[in-house]
């Protein structure tokens, strides 16, 4: 009855106000507040997603992870070390000022300046210089061929004049994207409105509100209560199954761009032998972890290549769960239970290892505890070390003090992003100290060749070696989930990155 009354009132209102109500608004739930809205400095999911609406880059990465023209209408690569972008004519920022090649040069030059402290700077370091050819043409000169570059050129272009004029782009951003910032109530909500100056025209949705609700379950409940129109990962597994079964809601459940993996410290005397890493990997019951702890939200992984990637091959396989096989391998390596205490030993020393992860993610904590139990069944004395993220990352894993650590990588839009810095000799995030000249060569080839088939071949060969030597054991491919109210005003196109352009009715 109340509902009926409400909808009647709404109808009367709609008739009375007419066109004003035709402008649609959506409310999206999100888990953290953005730290900064300067596209060059973003470092959390909310900031990425909002920046993607406020700014436009040279290219846009579509849901299939292909680069599409955005501000640039076309580009060419006269040689593997040069990219030339042609901008659209008459581009404008949301405040109406023109966007030219100068703004593109300014954006990338500041980003590459080490003192600017941009979190993603490493992704762009192969760029030697960015220069303006004319008002509508920009040239990127690279140190060496760098194939993944195009995937990262969706970086939002900032207005040089405003930024240099002292405007705080981090809190009062101005971009050339489909939406613009209306208000930002820190810790509560970010409100955006359609940008009429967007080159393709304003989107159908006139207003997007992002509500910040840190607790996963509370966010799911707010969605069920109708306070939110859209929610997406991260969500708790039990909420996902309940929401998926509810026919009031539509959903998009797909493989994401992240992995959960086990980082072996190959510099640790116990773990320096690949055979030992194989034996430990065989103790990881992926089926149970993914099926019961993650309740099937993620997918059992088989190699360092993601199924969504062009480089994926189902034939490359890491070791799978095999308790007896692992024990046999330990025995072969000289670890026997000689004193009958149930723990394997060698030269009078017990087989002891420390499993670690960070406390923020309860599923990872549970996984580590489950692994501890499986390890002890095989006669391994496993200890656990669980601390909060800043202690775990800075003081432990990044200083290579771990033995076996459970971690994750996100935003793997290109195989290079999961492998190059992480697994080449001396790479900046090679915390396990892995080194194999053959892998170095293949990963270098993977990033420098511009031919996708050649790249895929290089990555597959590297993945094969990595599946045997196991500096990383990939536990699962993370899933991505999005739920929306069935009465959603526009068509919904989800992307595994969780970006929102597919929800606002963009003009093509």
């Amino acid at each position, binding site marked *: 009855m109340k509902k009926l009354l409400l909808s009647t009132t709404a109808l009367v209102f709609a008739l009375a106000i007419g066109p004003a109500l035709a402008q649609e608004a959506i409310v999206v739930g999100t888990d953290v507040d953005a730290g900064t809205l300067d596209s060059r400095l973003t470092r959390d999911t909310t900031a990425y997603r909002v920046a993607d609406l406020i700014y436009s880059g040279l290219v846009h990465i579509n849901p299939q992870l292909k680069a599409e023209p955005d501000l640039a209408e076309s580009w060419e690569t006269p040689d593997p070390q040069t990219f030339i972008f042609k901008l659209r004519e008459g581009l404008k920022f949301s405040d109406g000022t023109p966007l030219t090649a100068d703004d593109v040069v300014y954006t990338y030059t500041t980003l590459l300046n080490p003192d600017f402290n941009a979190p993603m*700077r490493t992704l762009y370091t192969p760029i030697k210089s960015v220069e303006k050819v004319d008002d509508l043409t920009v040239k990127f000169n690279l140190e060496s061929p760098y194939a993944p570059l195009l995937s990262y050129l969706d970086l939002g272009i900032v207005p040089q004049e405003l930024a240099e004029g002292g405007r705080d782009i981090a809190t009062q951003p101005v971009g050339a994207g489909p939406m613009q910032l209306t208000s930002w109530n820190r810790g509560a909500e970010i409100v955006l409105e359609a940008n009429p100056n967007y080159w393709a025209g304003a989107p159908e949705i006139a207003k997007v509100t992002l509500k910040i609700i840190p607790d996963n379950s*509370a966010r799911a409940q707010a969605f*069920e209560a109708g306070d939110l129109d859209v929610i997406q990962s991260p969500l708790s597994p039990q909420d996902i199954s309940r929401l998926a079964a509810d026919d009031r809601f539509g959903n998009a459940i797909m493989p994401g761009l992240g992995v959960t993996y086990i980082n072996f410290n190959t510099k640790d005397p116990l773990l320096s032998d690949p055979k030992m890493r194989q034996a430990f990997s065989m103790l990881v019951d992926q089926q149970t972890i993914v099926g019961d702890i993650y309740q099937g939200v993620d997918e059992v992984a088989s190699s360092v290549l993601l199924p969504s990637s062009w480089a994926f091959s189902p034939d490359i396989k890491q070791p799978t769960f095999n308790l007896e096989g692992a024990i046999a391998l330990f025995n072969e390596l000289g670890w026997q239970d000689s004193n009958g205490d149930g723990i394997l030993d060698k030269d009078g020393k017990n087989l002891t290892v420390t499993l670690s992860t960070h406390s923020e993610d309860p599923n990872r904590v549970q996984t580590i505890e489950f692994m501890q139990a499986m390890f002890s069944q095989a006669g391994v004395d496993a200890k656990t070390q669980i601390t909060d993220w800043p202690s775990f990352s800075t003081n432990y894993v990044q200083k290579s003090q771990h033995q076996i650590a459970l971690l994750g990588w996100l935003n793997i839009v290109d195989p290079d992003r999961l492998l190059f*810095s992480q697994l080449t000799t001396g790479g900046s995030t090679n915390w396990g100290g892995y080194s194999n000249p053959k892998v170095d060569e293949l990963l270098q080839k993977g990033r420098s060749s511009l031919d996708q088939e050649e790249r895929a071949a290089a990555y597959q060969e590297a993945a094969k070696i990595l599946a045997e030597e196991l500096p990383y054991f990939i536990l699962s491919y993370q899933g991505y989930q999005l739920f929306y109210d069935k009465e959603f005003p526009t068509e919904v196109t989800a992307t595994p990155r969780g970006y929102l352009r597919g929800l606002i009715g963009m003009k093509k």
Partner: protein
Amino acid sequence: MPAAISSRPAVHQDQFAPTLAKQTEPDAVIAYLIRRLLLFIPMAVGMVVVTFGLLLIIPGDPASVLLGQEASPEAIERLRDTLGLNDPWYVRLWDYFANLLSGDFGTSIFQNQPVTTIILGRLGATIELAVAALVIATVLGLAMGVISAMRQGSIIDTITMVFAQLGVSMPVYWLSLLLMLAFAVQLGWLPAIGRGTPLPQAFCAALSGRPQVLMDSLSHLLLPALALSATPAAIISRLTRTSMLEMLREDFVRTAYAKGLRRPRVIIRHVLRNALLPVLSVIGLRFGMLLGGAVLTESIFAWPGLGQLTITAISQRDLPLIQGIVLTFALIFALVNLLVDLLYAAVDPRVRLG
């Protein structure tokens, strides 16, 4: 802590027994206030040093959190230099105090805004929530306590005390989700999350003929305030009950009845007034606890206050922001305690400030 409060207020005072203690002079009150406020300075210095020490001990580096997993060690080191994290601890502590003296609480590493701006932007929401919770807790707690003391041993007493027990033992996290499930998801009466217009503005709007703004604010406030009030309401009700029962047995109550006073007058004027004293100091202390409880409640109901900010700041090791929040909490706590002491003197003239 109540300064200079005499002993347990068991000695009865009423209009028939002229009190011996004389009212505190206004001048003395002002001198007392100034002294109490001055005492805040050493306390604040202590708080800063202790927090600073704790932050030195706990591992974790804001530079590495800020730059994320993909940053190179050189980039992290460069940012540490920029942030001054590589300076020796005494230099950093000295700098912090020097800035404090000029009223500068520093700049948040993560939000890149002055700490003062950030905290002031959030403070109102937390105070609004804590005060609302305290009002609900006091009204509920006093009512439940008085009723169950009056009907000691009855079924009403049992039910009330079972509720009080539940209130103390239920985790606020769980209770919050349950309230949200019942009133927002199932019944759909109240919004599940967020805050409406801040109450002071909402009152103004209501006065200028827009009562729906006030209703909206209150409807957002009700669930989190209720969740937050459960524990203090339970504690206040138990304490009121005990305190009332104690007073009911006192001689002066018998005397009052003997004089022919009616029961309501005896209860309100003689029993409750005396029983309130210990309750009052607990309510004051509870306000501090409420600020702590608000940390969880705010996260669940997406209430944009200091509690949520505290969690984020600690998890990111945003050192200047953590310092600022701790100082703010300490200041609020000290001010509330001072207020309680003043109220004490107002309720019980035998208590002298000085």
